[in-house]
């Protein structure tokens, strides 16, 4: 509201304006307590972390209050302790690469399995549909640690998978699946797949199947209907689901820690190391912020595509 407009009008309009101002004041007052808590224990600490990333690492952990860009330098480069030569920090690069690769693969596998599942739920009769949906929701809200632990148990050498394969005679030596990238991929897919199914289902539920009928009527084959009609219409759900799987995968900590066995690290574990054995807090802070920037970048791509989608359909 422009103040100029308000002052130009006589007393009666001010009733309307006063009512609006009262409403805004009330809204701000109601929101403030939540914002304070969130600032103190969610957003504010990120700012302090930004400060920390520009400090010098202490000799035995912690920090020295001395400005330095060394931590940011160390995110990507390695400086030899003796001759000060600079090289690319191979360990960091390979961990970032593994994280991105595994997160991407997780998203892909989750989509390949999740899309048909969402389609299956959406095409059930309404009475049974909510039951199927409930079955997806349950693991979603079950403790992540327990679900990862369940995967650990079944892929161990004496686990269910190996036992069944040996009994069936497919293999005679147990497969070493635990503590590999495959184990992490399996675990993350298992843990995050509900995040793919639910948004795709939400899009699919609104899908008007008369459009599918129309496509068949116009001589489209099943695969063409899928590719040319269904997929484009549920694209917002697919994009949302992919983002919802990709982002937590990238920041995963528990799953790679348990299933990667400390050998196959992801960014989350690399960050933890800086606060544990490595004890380089500024580097840990810089690595965390790097992760945050990648995640925010992915979110921006999502928001962009959501906006384009919104304007593309004219509503």
């Amino acid at each position: 509201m422009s103040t100029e407009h308000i002052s130009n009008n006589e007393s009666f309009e001010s009733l309307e304006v006063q009512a609006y101002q009262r409403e805004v004041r009330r809204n701000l007052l109601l929101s403030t307590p939540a914002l304070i808590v969130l600032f103190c224990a969610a957003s504010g600490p990120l700012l302090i972390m930004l400060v920390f990333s520009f400090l010098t690492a202490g000799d035995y952990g912690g920090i020295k209050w001395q400005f330095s860009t060394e931590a940011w330098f160390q995110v990507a480069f390695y400086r030899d302790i003796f001759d000060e030569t600079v090289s690319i920090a191979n360990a960091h690069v390979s961990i970032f690469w593994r994280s991105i690769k595994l997160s991407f693969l997780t998203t892909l596998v989750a989509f390949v399995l999740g899309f048909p599942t969402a389609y299956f739920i959406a095409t059930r009769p309404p009475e049974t549909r909510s039951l199927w949906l409930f079955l997806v929701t349950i693991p979603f809200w079950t403790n992540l640690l327990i679900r990862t632990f369940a995967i650990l148990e079944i892929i161990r050498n004496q686990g269910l998978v190996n036992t069944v394969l040996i009994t069936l005679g497919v293999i005679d030596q147990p497969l070493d699946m635990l503590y590999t990238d495959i184990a992490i991929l399996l675990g993350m897919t298992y843990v995050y797949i509900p995040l793919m199914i639910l948004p795709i289902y939400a899009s699919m539920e609104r899908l008007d199947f008369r459009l599918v009928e129309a496509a068949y009527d116009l001589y489209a084959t099943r695969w063409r209907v899928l590719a040319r009609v269904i997929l484009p219409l549920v694209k917002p759900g697919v994009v949302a689901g992919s983002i919802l799987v990709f982002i937590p995968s990238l920041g995963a900590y528990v799953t790679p820690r348990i299933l990667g066995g400390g050998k196959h690290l992801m960014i989350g574990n690399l960050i933890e190391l800086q606060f544990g054995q490595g004890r380089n807090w500024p580097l840990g802070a810089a690595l965390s912020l790097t992760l945050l920037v990648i995640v925010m970048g992915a979110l921006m791509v999502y928001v962009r595509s959501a906006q384009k989608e919104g304007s593309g359909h004219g509503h």
Partner: protein
Amino acid sequence: MSITVAVDVRSVSKIFGAGTGQEVTALDDVSVSIAQNEFFTLLGPSGCGKTTLLRLIAGFEHATHGSILLEGAEISALPPFQRPVNTVFQNYALFPHMSVSQNIGFGLEMQGRTKDEVADTVGAMLSLVKMENLKDRQIDQISGGQQQRVALARALAPRPKVLLLDEPLSALDLKLRKEMQVELKRLQHETGITFIFVTHDQEEALTMSDRVAVMNEGRILQVGAPHEIYNRPNDRFVADFIGDTNFISAEIIERDGNEIRMRLPSGIEIMIPAPPDLPQSGEITLAIRPEQARIASDGDAASIQGSLTDEIYIGTDTQYYIDIGTTSPFVVRVQNANGETQRIPTGTSVGISVDAKTIQILRD
């Protein structure tokens, strides 16, 4: 005899989104006085501002300009809960978590009446709307028509000075709507409370109201008793919105005392009674109701000539469509005597005769 004014709306304007650059004028300088114990209807198409005016009187919105007086006292600054005015909402807005009697007693309870008083009034209201046997039901356990009655009882229970009704019958089917029209009229008589009723249904407005205000695009176009609005519309929109109307343009030739001589497109000249402030010359529009025109028999002096293009049987009446050389055909509606229609072959050249007293001159 002076009539006491219940609600006085003085030059009220309501602009939504003021200052945002996307102003929408919902009410444009509206003034109207509603008398006590009157059944007053705001009639108009959706978006005409009738509901906004009702919400201003109830206190849910604030006017951008102007003032609203209740029995002579300014109420513009009072919040809804301090105004002795109650509303029957369009979809009833009954509290789903309360029973029928709890809903009816809500206003009384909020006014701080004693338990006995609340119980007595709720009992009286239940019998007024004939709902005694359903008093302990939950809202989702009663029918739409019954919900309608509960909404009425709830709004009447605190005995407001004015009852506002926002299209309360629109969700009911036709038969129930007819019943409720009679019921509303009875309630208004029995309680003696001023009713301000909002509707887009012209038939509803004409059958129930003491006076009707026809609104369009944020303005009140005409206020009057139903027969005045129907027989003497002073505006093209009013004539068009209420009932069916034939519009014909005519040229003023000369004034002769209280009457005016004008020439129709057919070349025939007629004399009709005219208001004194009509211009002395130029084009004007005439409105003629289909049922007030007749197919001229041989002896009649036909006012307009044309050829019959269509004949449509609509039960009680038959409608004749006559091409008189204007863009839309002239419609004549004739009541079917003894259920028989007067059959005229299409293409026949016919004359239309109209009683000059029933022709309405529109200012547009």
